[in-house]
């Protein structure tokens, strides 16, 4: 099969919707277009049937009961509902007071976790922000060390979205259950890709999203445990009491139906997909490491998901590298690619150093990534890195044996 350009390697940002998902959604736009909350006619019943089938599909993927799945607009909303909803429900003091409870999270969470936690800090909750070690993995021990008698909630992502590292989530879940603390995990980069069982893994609250697993954008889910313990949440969106009162608003029926189908497809193809992506990622990393000097794969050596590779190319600036590989759609930790002009806070927090953070690429592969595309990417990146190193004054200094980090630069 001929290689088709451009190549999509930004599957951690979003994925192409699987055509089988689109097909499942179509009748719900024009034929079964009812409001799932309409209880008195067939249009409503059809929509509700679609929603409840999807709820079963989503629940089956994670080993939950369908009553434990709440539909949202995506992981950002799920995280907000889980974190703010649990904190406010289990607060140790009323609004306007201090010391309302202790929450543990970590500094390399997605902004959709960090920002809700910052808001809770302003609302009188205490937050412990754990800084991970250089390998990026948050362990059970780090949580155990941060626990306090007044800890009410722990929120640790299952997989870091930039570097793909896997945290000790089941172990942290067990710890939280032993201590009677609510445990939330943002599993956006985990669910659908890796086997998940909320019972075995001791999860109380779990966020995931449709568009990361080949479903449509604009729909997500929150798992909310109903038994041992029964987790209660204070709603953020009021009005009508949909989704067991936790999330009001007419359901995005087409989106939910597509999400359900996407969950089913992920479950059926998971083992084969995982193995295939793992070997493609291994090839990508192995080849780049062997062909180029001063290349670093960021994050833990083994504890990483098969679909995310985060690689720094020393003495090459990330945005210019992206420009050189313009036929490959991917992300960079470079400041220049962000609105804030700050390099990736995730890489900075791993102590990777600003210059290597500026030099990083995140390549994330998916269901349609082929070996030919991986081969193309390897060649293109190698060529571009060499082109840019020939231009790089820092590369010259490195080759002369001068430690670039010891030079006093005139910052601007």
């Amino acid at each position, binding site marked *: 099969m001929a290689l088709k350009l451009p190549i999509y390697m930004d599957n951690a940002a979003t994925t192409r919707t699987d055509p089988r998902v689109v097909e499942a959604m179509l009748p719900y736009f024009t034929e079964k277009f009812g409001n799932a909350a309409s209880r008195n006619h067939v249009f409503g019943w059809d929509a509700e049937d679609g929603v409840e089938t999807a709820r079963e599909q989503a629940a089956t993927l994670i080993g939950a009961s369908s009553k434990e799945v709440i539909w949202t607009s995506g992981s950002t909303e799920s995280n907000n509902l889980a974190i703010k909803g649990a904190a406010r429900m289990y607060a140790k003091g009323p609004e306007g007071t201090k010391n309302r409870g202790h929450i543990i999270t970590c500094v390399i969470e997605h902004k959709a976790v960090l920002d809700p936690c910052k808001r809770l800090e302003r609302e009188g909750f205490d937050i412990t922000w754990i800084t991970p070690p250089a390998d990026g993995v948050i362990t059970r021990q780090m949580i155990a060390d941060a626990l306090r008698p007044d800890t009410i909630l722990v929120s640790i992502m299952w997989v870091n979205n930039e570097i793909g590292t896997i945290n000790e989530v089941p172990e942290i879940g067990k710890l939280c259950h032993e201590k009677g603390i609510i445990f939330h995990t943002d599993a956006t980069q985990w669910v659908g890709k890796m086997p998940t069982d909320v019972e075995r893994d001791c999860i109380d609250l779990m966020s995931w999203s449709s568009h990361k697993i080949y479903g449509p954008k604009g729909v997500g889910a929150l798992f909310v445990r109903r038994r041992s313990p029964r987790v209660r949440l204070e709603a953020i969106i009021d009005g009508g009491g949909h989704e067991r009162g936790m999330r009001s608003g007419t359901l995005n029926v087409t989106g939910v139906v597509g999400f359900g189908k996407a969950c089913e497809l992920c479950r059926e193809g998971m083992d084969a997909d995982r193995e295939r992506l793992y070997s493609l990622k291994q090839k990508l990393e192995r080849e780049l490491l062997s062909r180029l000097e001063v290349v670093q794969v960021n994050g833990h050596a083994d504890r990483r998901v098969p679909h995310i590779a985060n690689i720094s190319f020393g003495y090459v*600036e*990330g945005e*210019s590298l992206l*420009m050189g590989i313009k036929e490959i759609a991917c992300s960079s930790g470079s400041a220049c690619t962000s609105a804030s002009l700050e390099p990736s806070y995730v890489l900075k927090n791993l102590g990777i150093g600003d210059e290597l953070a*500026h030099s990083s690429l995140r390549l994330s592969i998916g269901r349609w990534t082929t070996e030919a595309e991986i081969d193309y990417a390897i060649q293109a990146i190698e060529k571009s890195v060499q082109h840019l190193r020939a*231009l790089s*004054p820092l590369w010259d200094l490195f080759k002369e044996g001068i430690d670039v*980090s010891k030079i006093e*630069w005139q910052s*601007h």
Partner: protein
Amino acid sequence: MAYSEKVIDHYQHPRNVGSFGTSKDVAARRDIGVGIVGAPECGDVMQLQLRISDEGVIEDAKFKCFGCGSAIASSSLATEWIKGRTIDEALTIRNTQIVEELSLPPVKIHCSVLAEDSIRSAIADFQKKNGIAAAKAESDAAAR
């Protein structure tokens, strides 16, 4: 972000890339002025080396750049503009001219500032090496 065609052209075919030797070599040569501006942690470093005649004419210019496409294009363009010019002429180049020529968006203006700074810095280095009063450069700056 979309780049202008000129930026892409300079990125793909940078003019006057290189140096006149290792950092030690050029430090010892009185006919060469070196300017290095920026910082790796800010994501851009520009190095400009100028070979300047006794009459103060920039006979050759070489650059190296660690930075985004706009930074590479700004420094590449700067070398084109100053080759064959006198020091005084080179010092009249302003970052705004680079912005205009390359159609740089506001977020990339700092790249053009760096390029202007690298010209000033390389010329100042040449003058220092040759005992030419920095007053000349300062009075130029004051006259702006």
